[in-house]
């Protein structure tokens, strides 16, 4: 098995707020991430696809196809957006790194036609990232 990884970056804003919690609970649990007007990050997304290189092309999958998929499904949906309000898949979720990574996994996994999605790694900052491996074994 060989993996290939493509990286994209997109700035976006978000805030953490659960309407089921009181204002005090939201503040206590989410801290400054609960500030009402939100805040932003430069997200970095690494998408890793695993497979065997094709005997004719030598590729696990065509990188151009992956690039187009990331552009269509991720960039157009999330780039320069307020994730809470503008990304339907996150509407009723807290847009943490973990939840965004899961949403990205679910958007990409069924659309990868060659190889298999192996890992979605989403950096919120250089100090914090979430990895999603789907329901497969992963590591």
């Amino acid at each position, binding site marked *: 098995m060989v993996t290939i990884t493509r990286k994209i970056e997109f700035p976006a804003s978000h805030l*953490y707020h*659960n309407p*089921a*919690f009181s204002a005090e609970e939201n503040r206590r*649990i*989410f*801290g400054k991430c609960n500030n009402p007007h939100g805040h932003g990050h430069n997200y970095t997304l690494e998408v890793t696809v695993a497979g065997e290189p094709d005997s004719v092309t030598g590729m696990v999958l065509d990188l151009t196809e992956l690039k187009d998929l990331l552009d269509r499904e991720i960039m157009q949906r999330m780039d320069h957006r307020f994730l809470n309000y503008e990304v339907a898949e996150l509407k009723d*979720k*807290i*847009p*943490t*790194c*973990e*939840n965004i*990574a*899961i949403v990205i*996994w679910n958007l990409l996994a069924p659309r990868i036609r060659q190889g298999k999605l192996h890992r979605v790694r989403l950096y919120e900052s*250089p*100090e*914090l*990232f*979430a*990895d*999603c*491996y*789907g*329901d*497969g074994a*992963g590591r």
Partner: protein
Amino acid sequence: MKVTLTRRYSFSASHRLHSAKLSEADNQRLYGKCSNPYGHGHNYIVEVALGGPVDPATGMIANLANLDSYVREHVLSDFDHRYLNEEIAVFKTIVPTSENLCIEIFNRLKGFPGARLERVRIEETSKNSFEYSGESK
């Protein structure tokens, strides 16, 4: 759905690679300049990876503020700006290679109450990194 959350921390510390079980000549041959008698330092990066279910109410595997304070209390406050050989008890008897440092930090963090500790990864320099995921994996 398997999800892990990883947080990066850093601390600066010095160490010396030197085994009392080896001769001076063997230490020098094995560890080279890392065995120089007064030690040397690194800016260590520690990546702490947690796994477990994402709490639907918070969207989180673990509250980062809790993780930060746990790592500060159990690792950073003891390790930062210290000489590992002399000031961390376990390294009085074992060599403070980054392999052993990974295991020591893993053992200090595995009791974190908020989530399962998946992995500790250490960058000793930008060229060398080490990972430990516990015994059972």
